[in-house]
């Protein structure tokens, strides 16, 4: 065991450029597509898209999607799907709203409670998948409907007939924790920058951008944490193994069931985080929140290089995937194209981004 990991020079290996090594990593696969989309919009879109306020404008929905996408990506790497995250956003949003508005709980109680509650629902999902051996697709699909339906029923019960629960903003006003989960971070910094003329301002002198929306910060934190978990922790290894081959992983001593249940709980918590942020930002929640987000999250993860069959992918890929998706969805409104063509462009851009990505990677790594 005194040998070092340093491998002896091997005549059977051609030298490889740093760039090509980089492109081989699943983490960085999606970057080429992101750059392509960026170039496309910097040519076709209004210049305001890539000003500070423009970037923040498309990064906000991208971040909300991205938080879900990273949860979805980790679950996909672990070999399962969760189609219920979109409904989970509505459902945990409702739960959080009820905690704050109806029961008047302070955030320090309401937020952990919401996470625990969501994780619990996630665990139910996971337990059914594992106990029954059914595909997670069908089990979480059932929860897609059930949770969406329960959100509606719950909302009506909580509001006495309406599908919208309001008053969250008023209820959390002045709560110290609120600034971690809603609004903009670093407002002071931005004001200072504006006063120095370093960022755009309105005529009134107020900065156009009053801070970085907290979801963007959460998005970065979660991407970092997920990457660390996947690449640096033993449990990351277990996730890859579980998704790569459930039986082989189990036979090698990976506690596959625990891994899967934890991942279901994780995606549910990601949904809860998005729910908390959006409910506090909007001040209200309704029965349609998070509609089809499960779908978009999976799209973002796949654009970012996750395999649907499991065992391969990365959080950074999902990060860029979400940004690509967010940039395309919002970016087209900055262009002059007839908006009737929106979906055609959306589909076309996604396809081109992914194809480009793939072509670059193959080119660089010499794969065929």
């Amino acid at each position: 065991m005194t040998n070092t990991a340093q491998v002896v020079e091997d005549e059977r290996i051609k030298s490889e450029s740093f760039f090509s090594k980089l492109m081989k990593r699943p983490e960085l696969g999606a970057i080429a597509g992101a750059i392509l989309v960026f170039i496309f919009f910097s040519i076709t879109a209004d210049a305001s898209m890539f000003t500070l306020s423009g970037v923040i404008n498309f990064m906000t929905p991208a971040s909300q999607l991205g938080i879900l996408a990273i949860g979805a990506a980790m679950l996909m790497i672990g070999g399962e799907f969760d189609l219920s995250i979109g409904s989970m956003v509505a459902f945990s949003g409702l739960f959080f709203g009820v905690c704050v508005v109806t029961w008047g709980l302070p955030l320090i109680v309401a937020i952990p409670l919401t996470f625990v509650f969501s994780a619990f629902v996630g665990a139910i999902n996971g337990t059914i998948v594992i106990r029954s051996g059914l595909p997670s697709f069908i089990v979480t699909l059932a929860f897609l409907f059930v949770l969406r339906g329960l959100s509606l029923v719950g909302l009506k019960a909580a509001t006495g007939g309406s599908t919208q629960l309001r008053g969250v903003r008023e209820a959390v006003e002045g709560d110290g924790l609120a600034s971690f989960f809603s609004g903009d971070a670093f407002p002071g910094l931005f004001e200072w920058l504006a006063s120095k003329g370093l960022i755009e301002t309105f005529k009134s002198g107020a900065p156009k951008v009053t801070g970085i929306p907290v979801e963007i910060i959460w998005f970065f934190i979660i991407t970092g944490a997920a990457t660390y978990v996947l690449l640096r922790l033993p449990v990351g290894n277990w996730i890859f193994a579980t998704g790569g081959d459930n039986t082989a992983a189990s036979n090698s001593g990976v506690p596959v069931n625990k891994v899967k249940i934890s991942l279901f709980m994780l995606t549910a918590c990601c949904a809860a985080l998005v729910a908390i942020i959006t409910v506090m930002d909007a001040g209200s929640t309704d029965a349609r929140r998070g509609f089809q987000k499960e779908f978009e999250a999976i799209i973002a993860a796949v654009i970012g290089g996750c395999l649907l069959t499991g065992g391969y992918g990365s959080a950074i890929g999902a990060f860029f995937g979400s940004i690509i998706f967010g940039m395309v969805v919002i970016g087209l409104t900055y262009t002059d194209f007839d908006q009737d063509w929106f979906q055609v462009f959306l589909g076309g851009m996604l396809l081109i981004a992914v194809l480009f990505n793939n072509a670059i990677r193959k080119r660089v790594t010499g794969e065929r």
Partner: protein
Amino acid sequence: QDIIVVAHGQANDPFWSVVKNGVEEAGKDTGVNVDYRSPETFDMVAMSQLIDAAVNQEPDGLIVSIPDADALSPSIERAVAAGIPVISINAGSDVSKGLGALLHVGQDEYDAGKAAGEKLAEMGGTNAICVNQEVGNVSLDLRCEGFGEGFGGSYTVLPTTNDPAEIESKVAAALSSDESIDTVMALGASTAGEPSVAAAKASGRDINVASFDLSASFLQSIVDGDAAFAIDQQQFLQGYLSANFLALHAKYGLMPGGNVPSGPNLITSDKAAQVIDLSSKGIR
């Protein structure tokens, strides 16, 4: 006695949930059994099948919305042929009679859009966006078209999904890429209207935001002066009256002589405050 409602809007749609509440209240008041049904998405084929299913149960009255007369006419005609009294609500005032419905309670989407457009033009608007959260839903498309007709100036349709965060970003993007936009017409208050208000506010410009339908938060914005008005078609009435008429028809054979217009009704800042409370209870 049973009355069945088949509408094209889902029970979790804020607008249609009010219709449903109206139907239910009528059921309570008149003591008949009411049942609200809708397809999972805006889907005319599925809707015609739901009408067929309703007809099979031979209810004492059938309430339908008619966003696509071609697709729904065979099913409605089958109901009429089966001797079931039919009332149409919301969409389809023009075809209602021809298909054999007794009367129509509602507001023409196109006319409502036109009224809103005229009002916004009056408020000085010249360049508008119409935020459509469900492109291809014909009744929403009609609102936009009517708006364009009434508005007179130039307008573009901004297609979005149901996601408030995305709508806010898109409206913000549209506003910042075209400085001349001064009017935002949202097609649903809670989905499209509220985020549009937020985006307009953040742009720092003076923009008139109006919306179809009501939501408490949007009404609050009207009160606060951030939004111009909301178009209320009092859809509660569409549900309540139609169900009530049919209940009375079943009991006593009564029926009003003509269509009942439930809107349009512009809610501006002077009226908004009174409506907020009702709206948050799902009545307006």
